[in-house]
């Protein structure tokens, strides 16, 4: 079935469609990421947003998707992206704790903590945020992991852009506060 069709159904609440879509997207993301890496190696770190956008272009292909569908795609992809990244970070973290040392062959130094730790902390903080306000957590996820703009998020969640921006802003402040401890 066409992805756009699937996405439309997902939007209408079709759980089966969602189940079908997720592995599709996941596979495509990984394939794309690998190809992306080969092309992009040696440059700045991968931009997740670029990745998600490209996946969308690939999957949707020749059609001219309506704006609504694109947002739906990104909405799902953001969640998946978060899952993928957090899982991987957790594995690496576990490795480290088991004694396998990392060698700094990159010039990433200035991030303060290691990126994995930051990411895991963010993940936990997001979970806590979701307890308080599921909407805010989802908005943050879509922005950080999916690279969605306020317009796109608003479209996906049927909210005004103004409210989206406000909510994200507050959520960011809250997250930073949580992670600063």
């Amino acid at each position, binding site marked *: 079935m066409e992805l756009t069709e699937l996405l439309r159904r997902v939007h209408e609440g079709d759980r089966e469609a969602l189940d079908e879509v997720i592995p599709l997207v996941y596979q495509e993301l990984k394939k794309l990421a690998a190809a992306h890496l080969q092309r992009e190696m040696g440059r700045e770190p991968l931009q997740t947003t670029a990745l998600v956008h490209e996946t969308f*272009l690939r999957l949707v292909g020749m059609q001219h998707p309506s704006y609504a569908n694109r947002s739906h795609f990104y909405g799902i992809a953001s969640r998946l*992206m978060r899952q993928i990244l957090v899982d991987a970070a957790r594995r690496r973290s576990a490795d480290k704790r088991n004694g396998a040392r990392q060698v700094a062959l990159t010039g990433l130094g200035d991030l303060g903590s290691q990126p994995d730790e930051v*990411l895991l902390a963010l993940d936990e903080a997001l979970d806590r945020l979701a307890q308080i*306000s599921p909407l805010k957590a989802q908005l943050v996820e879509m922005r950080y992991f999916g690279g969605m703009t306020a317009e796109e998020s608003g479209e996906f969640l049927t909210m005004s852009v103004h409210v989206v921006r406000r909510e994200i802003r507050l959520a960011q402040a809250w*997250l930073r506060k949580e992670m600063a401890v």
Partner: protein
Amino acid sequence: MRPETEGLFHELANRSADERAEFFRNHEVPADLRAEVETLLRFDAEGDHILTESIATAAAQSLNSEREGIQCGPYRLMRAVGRGGMGAVYLAERTDGEVRQQVAVKLLRYGGNEAGFRERFLRERQILAGLNHPGIVHLIDVGRTSDGQPYLAMDYIEGVPIDEYTRDLALRAKLDLFIRVCDAVSHAHRNLVVHRDIKPSNILVDAGGEPKLLDFGIAKLLGEESGIQGSLTLDAGAALTPDYAAPEQVTGEAVTTATDVYALGVLLFVLLTGQHPAGPGAHSRTALFRFIVESDPPHPSGVTASSKLQKALRGDLDTIVAKALKKSPRERYDSVAALAEDVSRYLKKQPILARPDSLGYRASKFVLRNRAAAALGALALIAALAGVAGTLLQARAAREERDFALRQVSRANAINDLNSFVLSDAAPSGKPFTVNDLLQRAEGIVEHENGRYNANRVELLISIGRQYQTQDEDAQARRVLEQAYQLSRPLAEASIRARASCALARTVADSGELPRAEALIKEGLRALPDEPQFNFDRVFCLTLGSGVAYTAGAGTQGIERADAALRLLKKSGFTSEREELDALTNLAEAYRFAGQQREAAAMFEQAAERMTLLGRDKTQAAGTLFNNWALALSQLGQPLEAEKIFRRAIDVSRDDRGEQAVSPMLLVNYARTLSDLGRQKEAADYAERGYAKAKQAGDEVVVNQSLLLRGVIYRAQGDVARAKEMLVEVEPRLRQALPPGHVAFASLTSEQALNARAANDLKTALDLSNQAVTMLEATLKKGGQGAEGLPTFLLRRADLELQLGRPRDAANDAGRGLRLVLEAAPTGTFSSRIGRAYLVLARALDAQGKQEEARDAARSAAAHFQNALGPEQADTRAAQQLAGLGSQNR
């Protein structure tokens, strides 16, 4: 989070600290709620780039790990250990039954040219594997995976990149380390291997403090066939970061050992100062290319904050770095060994062999035009001679003003995308590429990739068009932006339609088609719905619209638009300090263009304070700001203040070798102010230097300005013959460049009149003076610019009439001139122009025997001069004398 917390947060988020305090005074808020909200507000102010960077990095690492377990020849990848300069690096084990050896395996991009790659491998492998030096990481093997992906196997080194390692090291230790790096590179050179990609991430320092260099010659191994050596693009076309690239690498010329010398020069700079020669912070590729090819790097001593370090670096180390960083390979150190030798001599406190550049203008084959600071406010000297504010000598000068309008809030995505697209495609083999080539390629890519997604395509075309504008490629810019505009018409997104209209408007205005430009701006603004999410687009259009307005001479509208843009930015709450500063500067420029010098000066001052707060007050942009501010002050008739600010502009734009990096226009502007202050000798010096530089650079506008100014100065010094020479030289140049009836010719005539008077040929002087007035009145009647010159000409004529014993005519002219000057000036300003007008009038009245009135006028004159020029000036004293002692006829 309670609803009250949220509500209060949003209520206060966009308010200033004062306003918040006010709010709490006027409202009853429970202490715990207040504390909670204040905490959140505090965290609101921080940025979130750390989070996004972490995510991106984590993404990269995750994807790297996908490859774990893969077999590369006899090696199996165990674990990703990071990302090197050219690809992911893995810890690997040898598994072919031989000694279990731990190596590092680096996966590289796919080679494009199968046959060529194989041949090169075979050829180079021997050489590279044969490099044996403690400072060079030994290359064990190269090969291909079963997927065909090339890999390198090398010794596994645990270490820290050299820039990190040396961060807290003492100077001496840093230099020692650097020398050892040079030794390793020298060794390779002796074996005819050029590294081509020396940078910190390729130099690891191990636990024993020994530097180890990675990836020798790999760039060549993977580079194109015979054609380009050491091109910045590799087979698959993805580019290396150009941070350490030498000019010849950027322009596609031959790469030699001197290329490594350059990279080591950059490395040394970074080790010594902690920043890149192009300045702190990140740089876009295009900006870097421009810097590498065009700009002279600063001295390390000029860039450090600590004065102790400054002292240590100034002198020999500055010279060493400068020599390594010469644009022309021939001028650098002959060899890396020579570079190391000089550093070693420095450490031993022996004299080094490199010679510092001599003062004086160095001809360079690279154009020194600094486009980024191109908007240097072309104050026509002619205009200033006649007291005309803001007249533009030639169309080109107008274009230089537009840079301010080009600084605008841009969609980060579009620009980033552009940069990645541009450099992700393969360079055609054998051909060097320039920035323009890249832009053209970008167009092609946009055409190809984004054919279906018109919104993105338009955005990218807009970015490309604006980049052409900053490259002075107006024809290209126009073409691309017209295309963007056409494509945008049928799109639904208002934001894109508006941006396309407004971006096109600017380039159309530059071609002089002002009505169309204005129509486009209006169209753009109309297209935007009146909702907050379109604020940034509106700011974009307003900023560009401001420039269009004042180019068309509609000064007030220019101000209104710039002001609206600034207020909108402030209101939107998502903006950055930098954007606000740009908008503020733009507004100041609009005021200056509209002739409202006092407001302009006030805004410039604000902008300068902001720049200082942001730590940007030593940048080129700051230099431009100071220049324009000083111009506004000088047009206000406040040369004392102007001189100080010009000084700052010069300080900011020069480097320690002298005024070499300072633009000729700035030198001439400064000279004029010095002349206004009566410091003729210094003025002559600067004016001559400005002239010489302008001639060298082929800057016709400034050559003319400097000639006229020198005429004024020499005359003031009593050298009338030389003053006349200047006018003789400049007249044909003006005739060639300007249409007849331009205010410039009236000014020229007026200058000739002054020369005649200085030579005591009063009759000729009066004739010429009459001509000047007539010419200007005719120009003004036809709607030409230059009205501010009229009072000056009248006052000069008044002077002559006095000398010729016609006090009544003198008083008429002086009175008329004074009235004009007072009308034009904002009330309450002290201005030397007004002072002069009063003084001439005072003299005329005095000659008519009207003592009281004369003294009054003289007192006013004295007051203005005192404040605008200082108490010691000749004019000040003359006015005071006249005011105090009255006429000698008593």
